[in-house]
């Protein structure tokens, strides 16, 4: 029967210290919530690098597709004389695709972000934990896995680490 120890900290420094302490004590941090970006070592889900590549790829691909489309409409689908200009006026055909590519890159990036950040989960179990709610405004919160047995020790550890509030939840 496992339990979860939840600790809330008032500021970043204490939070970092707490996490460090728990680490030393060999406790496994199973969740971290902060009101603004806080980087703590390797803890938390993996890298975000793919977002960059997806975004760039999405942008480039769309721009190329768009240029292809323009080329097709102007020279294949319905070619006609407009002011004696070349049918394939590539210099000016470049402009719209560039703009569109930028937009597409943004969209691709956004999608990548949503997927990677596992968003659109409006009913995540974490939301049942009241601490997490406060983590979006003022508290820094982390959760340790522990057995129901040594709850007291964990709470002591957390208190010593400077948690403004901590408790054990069992399921």
């Amino acid at each position, binding site marked *: 029967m496992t339990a979860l120890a939840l600790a809330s900290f008032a500021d970043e420094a204490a939070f970092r210290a707490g996490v460090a302490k728990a680490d030393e004590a060999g406790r496994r941090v199973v969740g971290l919530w902060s009101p603004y970006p806080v980087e703590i070592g390797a803890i938390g889900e993996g890298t975000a690098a793919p977002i960059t590549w997806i975004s760039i790829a999405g942008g480039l691909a769309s721009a190329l597709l768009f240029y292809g489309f323009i080329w097709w409409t102007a020279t294949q689908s319905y070619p006609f004389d407009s002011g004696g200009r070349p049918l394939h006026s590539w210099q000016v055909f470049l402009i719209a695709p560039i*703009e569109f590519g930028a937009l597409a890159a*943004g969209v691709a990036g956004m999608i990548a972000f949503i997927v990677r950040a596992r968003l659109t989960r*409006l009913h995540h179990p974490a939301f049942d934990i009241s601490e997490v709610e406060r983590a979006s405004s003022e508290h820094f919160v982390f959760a340790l896995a522990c057995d129901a047995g040594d709850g007291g020790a964990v709470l002591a550890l957390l208190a010593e680490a400077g948690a403004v509030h901590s408790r054990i939840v069992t399921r």
Partner: protein
Amino acid sequence: MSDAARWLLPSMFDHKAITDAIAGPLVEGKAGKRWWIAVLVSLAVTGIGVLATGISFTYGPGMWGNNSAVVWGFPIANYVWWIGIGNAGTLISALLLLTRQKWRNAINRFAEAMTILAVSIAGLFPIIHLGRPMYFYWMAPYPNTMGLWPQWRSALVWDFWAILSYLLFSLIFFYLGLIPDLATLRDREGPRHWRRIWGAFALGWQGTPGQWRSHQRLQRVMAVIATPLVCSVHSIVGLDFAASLMPGWTESVFPPYFVVGAFFSGFAMVVLLALVIRAALSLEALIRPAHLDACAKMLLAAGSVMLLSYGSEWMSALWTGEAADLRFLRFSFTGPYAGLTYGMILGNCLLPQLFWSPALRRSVPVLVIVSAGVLVGMYFERILIICNTLSIGYEPTAWTLYVPTLVDFAILLGTGGLFVFAFLLLSRIIPLVPMYEIRELAEAAKGDAR
């Protein structure tokens, strides 16, 4: 006094205080009487614009001052002006983010909001100005019975894509930054249904390190894309004119010069908004004199660049000695529009020079006057770009002056009202200052303070 602390009062060092200061005034708090009055006034003004637009749609563009030679008038000037204002927001968030300017935090959110509103309004004008507005969608590529596609060589089509991309991109960028704050609102005590809405838009944000990492990453990526995008958009607006063969329009300097001009007017608007919001939401703790000072420096720099680009334009005319260009130059300084020309120089180039003095950079009245001056000056510039060239083209026999009508003014006024109205609504439902970034700042400030 250390760096971060310059941008924040100690009263804001506590995260709770930040949240309350920023989230407090939203729907949970009562909308003051001032807000209601502002809403009603702006609605009334918007109504005038809607009426004027209705008149134009009913009787035709003949209701405006446009004529056979000056076929473009206020609507196009309005378009260029608004899209210019729409420039600053994204630039501030993107450029200052990339250059890690801490002070951007206090202003970037409402600057972005401003961008979206301004660009949306700007987007209306290419439609309003049409002779047959009901067919505006013919500019979009869609399979049709005629088998026709848009004219990709037309600067107006470039515009179409530029505005569209810019608007949607800015919207995404804006929303991205908003997500964590929406989560804050969701989790805060407040009206249930609003919390549901915020919650829905917060997409289930928790603030775990992984989410933050992705969030930060995408923000940087988009910032990197946004910066050139903004420039390209305004360059394309410049190309509307530069990619022609009319004297005074065929200027290779136009694209960069439009970008600077846009940035310029945009920043002026940001300053005005900052002052208003600061007073209205009493955010003096967040929007510090240092912020105003920084914006003022921006205006000073941009104003000087404007002076340079005007100068280069005039000099190039003098150097080339092209008769048409010279006549054009003489016309703009001695012709019937000369007043506008001098007004433009005053507002865009001379007034900002006041900001060489640090005291004036922090004086609210001066900031108001100069920013207003810049906005007016930039409008003069827009209208001059159109009227000067079209009034005196190559054929002297076709020379005609342009005189706007009441309807023209009413439409311009109306869009102003619309802008204010929309902004007032936004100010009640989204935090106009990004809370999570202020928290970060506060943390840093605390660190410095110790």
